[in-house]
């Protein structure tokens, strides 16, 4: 095999919709219907409400950190506050600057939301619960996530407001810069796993009985471990979260790129930020933290023999357990993101860019090289296998 063959076979990996549908049909009825509808279920019934709940959690957690009570009026312990906020935003007047470019101004929030929510299509919540089982899943998430920077820049430019434009330019510079360390960190996992299919990456982390017998990839070797933190820091910056929220720095830019937006258009920007955080946490859990897998436990082995509508209910029960495990890990990461927001001060713009170009990129590349050398030295085995705790079959 030559390098040319290698490249051509590498590039031939593409999403195969027909293959996916065939895959769904192999699942016994009525579960293929559930699986086939999962993209819609995931996006409409998960991303939107969970994004809303995160706005409530953020306010409650920040209140706790600052020894306040937080929202406590709407619903029990203020649980319906996000719902009330949503209704308020729907009812508010949709304003635009007199000189705004209305076409672009109206499209921009939708682009940001599409970028955040579209990426969920390739995120596996459980073995059969994923929007699309893409062979280029990791690549797809990074590519469609880039729509966010486009939406922010377009919205900022079309607002006809200097604060918005400054915020938008900052956001674009930040997101484009931090995509590099983010990509390098993801590349390390792709190299270790040998696949870009996020579902397959999760399956490989089933320890000790899974194929290859790998433990969670964060513990595969010390280089991947450090690159997880590179990924996490870069993801924070990609989401414009504190300490990287310069794009909407209130003390300098009023509210940055979304200054002129009101009503539900502003709501979409706010929601997209949270959905982006959830999406990056989902990806981090899937590729670094074992996804739905727990050590020593194979959830696929759960057998109850129960029936639903004439079909075996075990797949559904297993999927529920997997979703619970996956979401528990995602929630833990989201808590860390919120914790960081209410603990660290905002960086200066030069510090932000220095952190990316002078530290994260060289560290990420060094770890990529280190991980490659580790793979060569130990024939692809992880740290746990090297020290003799390997399970599974090779």
């Amino acid at each position, binding site marked *: *095999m030559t*390098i040319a063959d*290698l*490249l051509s*076979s*590498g*590039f031939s*990996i593409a999403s195969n919709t027909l293959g996916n549908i065939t895959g769904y049909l192999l699942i016994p009825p009525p579960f293929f219907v559930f699986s086939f509808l999962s993209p819609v279920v995931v996006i409409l019934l998960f991303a939107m409400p969970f994004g809303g709940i995160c706005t409530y959690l953020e306010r409650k957690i920040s209140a706790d950190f600052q020894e306040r009570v937080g929202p406590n009026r709407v619903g029990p312990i203020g649980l319906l506050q996000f719902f009330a906020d949503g209704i308020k935003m729907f009812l508010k007047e949709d304003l635009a600057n007199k000189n705004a470019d209305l076409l672009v101004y109206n499209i921009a929030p939708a682009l940001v939301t599409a970028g955040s929510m579209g990426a969920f299509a390739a995120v596996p919540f459980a073995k059969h619960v994923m929007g699309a089982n893409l062979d280029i899943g*990791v*690549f797809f998430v990074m590519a469609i996530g880039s729509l966010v920077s486009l939406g922010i820049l377009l919205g900022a430019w079309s607002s006809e407001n200097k604060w918005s434009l400054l915020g938008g330019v900052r956001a674009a510079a930040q997101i484009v810069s931090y995509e590099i360390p983010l990509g390098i960190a993801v*590349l390390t996992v*792709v*190299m*270790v*796993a*040998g*696949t*870009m299919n996020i579902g397959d990456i999760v399956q490989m982390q089933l320890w000790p009985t899974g194929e290859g017998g790998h433990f969670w990839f964060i513990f595969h070797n010390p280089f991947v471990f450090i690159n997880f933190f590179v990924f996490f820091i870069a993801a924070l910056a990609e989401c414009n979260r504190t300490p990287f929220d310069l794009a909407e720095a209130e003390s300098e830019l009023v509210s940055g790129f979304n200054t002129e937006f009101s009503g539900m258009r502003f709501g979409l920007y706010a929601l997209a930020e949270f959905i982006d955080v959830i999406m990056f946490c989902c990806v981090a859990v899937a590729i670094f933290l074992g996804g739905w897998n727990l050590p020593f436990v194979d959830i696929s082995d759960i057998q109850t023999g129960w029936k639903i509508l004439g079909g075996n209910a075990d797949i559904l029960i297993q999927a529920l357990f997997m979703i619970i495990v996956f979401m528990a890990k995602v929630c833990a990461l989201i808590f860390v993101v919120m914790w960081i927001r209410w603990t660290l001060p905002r960086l200066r*713009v*030069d510090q932000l*860019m*220095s952190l990316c*170009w*002078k530290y994260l*990129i*060289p560290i990420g*590349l060094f770890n*990529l*090289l280190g991980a*490659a050398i580790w*793979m*060569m030295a130990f*024939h*692809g085995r992880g740290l746990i296998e090297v020290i003799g705790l390997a399970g599974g079959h090779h």
Partner: protein
Amino acid sequence: MFPVLRLFRGAIETNMAMAWQIFTVSFVFIGILLLGLIYELKKGDIDWIKDGFERADAFKETEHYKSRNIG
């Protein structure tokens, strides 16, 4: 990089010579990028805020400064 490094693991398990080839090609590519980054770092083009004195001197050369006769 993604398609090439995706095949790295499989090459390690089946064909070590190919694995070495991928390793070399990938890291020559990254090495060239790193050289560029180091060059830019040395040149100071990645510094978003230049030295304060340099900025002040540059400002004094502008038409705006000269026309308003500041200082």
